[in-house]
């Protein structure tokens, strides 16, 4: 009993739509729809869409039609620093009818945005301007263990 290693049951019989942040540009979602929601989807195409908050409203950015009632998906190339929600539902006459929403998640800013404030920089560049960290590090003259390697 204690060493049970069978596959864990993917389906729990619950409605679930979870959106997780992997990185500034990648989101992961997993879902499951219950028997009752499957009944509502009968004869309709299930659609999963990723929406981004813009001006207080969620607008779709990517739409997929997964064939499974329980599955997962990676949304790639999303915009860093955005608020996202995943929606699962069906489309009809050009309209989208969501049955499940995920929680809203925020993607972190991109690594490229990392700026290191260099207070009162006087050595190079304009005084007081923020500089990328590498530039700040160069000013300090920091090197690494490579000097000692050989």
């Amino acid at each position: 009993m204690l060493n049970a290693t069978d596959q864990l049951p993917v389906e729990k019989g619950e409605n679930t739509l979870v959106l997780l942040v992997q990185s500034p540009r990648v989101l992961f979602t997993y879902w499951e729809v219950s028997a009752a929601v499957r009944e509502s989807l009968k004869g309709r195409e299930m659609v999963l869409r990723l929406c981004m908050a813009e001006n207080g409203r969620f607008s779709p950015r990517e739409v997929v039609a997964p064939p499974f009632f329980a599955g997962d998906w990676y949304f790639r190339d999303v915009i860093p620093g955005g608020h996202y929600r995943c929606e699962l539902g069906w489309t009809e006459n050009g309209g989208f009818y969501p049955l499940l929403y995920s929680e809203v998640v925020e993607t972190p800013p991109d690594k490229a945005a990392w700026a290191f404030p260099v207070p009162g920089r006087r050595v190079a560049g304009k005084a007081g301007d923020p500089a990328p960290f590498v530039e700040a590090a160069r000013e300090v003259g920091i090197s690494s263990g490579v000097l000692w390697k050989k």
Partner: protein
Amino acid sequence: MVPEGYLFVVLHAHLPFVRHPEKERQLEENWFYQALTECYLPLLELFHRLAREGVGFKLTLSLSPTLITMLTDELLTRRYVAYLERLLRLAAAEKERTAGTEVHSLALLYEERLYRNHDLFVNACGKNILSGFAALQEQGFLEIITTCATHGYLPLVRSREARRAQILAGLDLYARHFGRRPQGFWLPECGYAPGVDELLATCGIRYFFVETHGILNASPPPPCGVYAPVLTAAGVAAFGRDPDSSQQVWDRQVGYPGDYWYREYYRDIGYELPWEYIEPFLPSGEVRTDTGFKYHRITGSEPKGVYEPEMARERAAAHAAHFLYHRQRQAAYWSQYLEHKPVIVCPYDAELFGHWWYEGPQWLEFLFRKVHYDQNAVVLTTPSEYLAANPPAVTVTLSHSSWGEEGYSKVWLNPANDWIYRHTHYAEARMTELCDLHPEAEGVLRRALNQAARELLLAQASDWAFILHVGSTAEYAARRVKEHVTRFNRLADEILAGRISEEALGEMEAADNIFPALDYRIYSRFFSGESLQVRVPRQVLLLSWEYPPHIVGGLGRHVYDLSRALVSFGNEVTVVTAQVSGSRVTEEVDGVVVHRVPVEGYESDFLGWVTRLNEEMVAVARRLWDRETRFEVIHGHDWLVGAAAQELAGRFALPLVVTIHATEYGRYQGIYNDLQYRIHSAERSLARSADRVICCSNYMAQEISRLFDVPLTKITVIPNGVDPGSLGIGGWRGLAPPSEAPEVLFLGRLVPEKGVQDLIRALPLVAERVPGVTAVICGQGPYEGELKRLAAEVGVFRRVRFAGFVDGAARNRLLQEAAVAVFPSHYEPFGIVALEAMAAQVPVVVGDTGGLSEVVEQGIDGFKVPPGQPEVLARYISEVLTNRSLAEEICRHAWRKVCSAYSWRHIAAVTREVYARVGSAWQE
């Protein structure tokens, strides 16, 4: 000489909980034995040596709860002695085998070291090295902190309760071993996600560490970068990792450990000597693995040269000097510009030192000696010491970050391991539900709940996802996740069914015996126990202008329910309120002491009445204070009691919590006259002077922040509660029976922003699928005539009944008969009516706006539709009316939510967290 900067060396020591009593020689237990031999014992030895010689070093050591458990586990420490003895036999064999060869001296070196380890572990430490580290902490050389219970990676732990359980179980275990709680906390993998700081604050933590970009991406950007700690809005300090010192040690290409004179990790006799020779000395006896006998140096090319310990030692000394030189330069540079002396934070995995980087402990020893003897430019210190003299000056919101590859969660969430989260998240939700179902379990049930909590914690260890990502021993990691989830599921099913197998439970307790004192209730939504590690103020003074029997709107009822729920947690609650005719001046109601002040002139001079009410409230509170009623927190409700709340907080030097139930601006969508302006000003003054503002929804929080210029970080959202009993509901009763003429119910004022016009326009569309549908519209308002005209216009006048104002009893009856309740608001700050319908077990369809949107979770406990779209509204009403199993499903979830997140007990629990936070900030 005044130093130019401060240096923290932080070592984080962690291994997953690997303990297999069922198998004598389990390969993965070897991780622990190797780390003891190569890292923990050498580090302890060097710390003691430095201390003995008077080298004043300081180091922050994070010991994970799983490692602490293994270091003190009788079975594992006994097996470790057997492991050491096996290696000593290998050393003897190697001494003989290598005689006359160039590696013979190395064989002797390893033998000598193994004997030293054996002596230190068995004789000096009595098989418990934790006490050795604890002694160094007592002497002031180490500051020992801890981390999450099983190193759960918090950004991927879903629920607040499960995150808190990871933190609290870790802190509790630490306190059991060290007799006190730590001031600092190591976030597993430096994984930070918004909200984690609040939990740490609630658990009494003063500081934690984040990866560099967690600080650099903070908002607003901290002016000192990572060279000074910042404060989060929750009041916890965060230190950022210095990237350069990290690169010098960690970097695969240029880091010190890659020096060609250092020992080569990947050449071990365990893989190289004949099987028949090496097999008796291998830990599992089944597969080749590391023995620790490594005779080569990195060299840089093949063939590898023989390891030369003296040359490696020279390099370690040189690298320590290089490291220190650059810290001095950093400190000198930054101290020119910063107001305070810079702090350089250098955190590393402890297992790097000695295991992966064999010379790491030597390097550390050289570094500490050089800092002590050779210079004064930088000072080694610990975070607690530093914070005591240099409190953070800047408050920021930190960014999501980790120290994993690419800086976020990719290592722990990718196609190799993403399958884990569906199961652990589901288990998190079940654990909290089980907990709330059984708040006071005893006996076998309590044991089963505690074990379920252990299995969940163990399944959440970040190590399994990491190993699955890396790919080596992936099968073992996958098996561990599956085993713990399977054990959890079995326990949860048995607990729900009321049939717990004691035999299986006993087996699980013996196998996964970590956290012996774990209390499953740390998963409860209602958890507000003393083990939060911070003191919750006990004596509460609530100020409210209405309180039963004086009820004008929802506020009086709110304060009444809150005050009683606080008493149930052990708070002593005093309410000071206005007196109405027939009510007593002083009385005790359900444990709440109520003082009522008589004030005349409410009708004739409203503002004068408010002034006198506040003066009388102050007088009563002062009398109570003079009679030794020592309030610890003042909690005022809305602007009408604002003046008294502010004066009393100032006079008694107490923290002030203010709940803003509604704003004058929000009520009228603007300020149009002098009276409103004065009320608006009073609200602003109160909100700004409060230590913490509470409101009922995120929507309201935004409004308060915008209107009164109060930072969002000062506002806590605690929803309003609902008491099913007040609706005549005693428990789950289920849906109204199916009907040929199902009723759609609306309750509320008849004004355009309630969206009843959308409901009327939707009805003909609903009738296409549900021919017998009818609607009952309850309420009064200026829009009634227009709505009746509209009903006639769209041809549903006969289907709609305008019921006018209904009292409580009639409302309850209507809720009992309704097939669906519809609140298609265009504007709604909270939406208590929807919550009441959910409590009455009626499926709800609501407008996706304001606070209503926050009450309903789409498809889980109701449906939300965009305001002003009758055709969409019709779709969902029809869906709920025709798919009864869907209606039943959402009602069940809604009922659970009402009984948990919207129960007064939960609201009191989170209100107590607010009291604890303002209380502790006040004491500092």
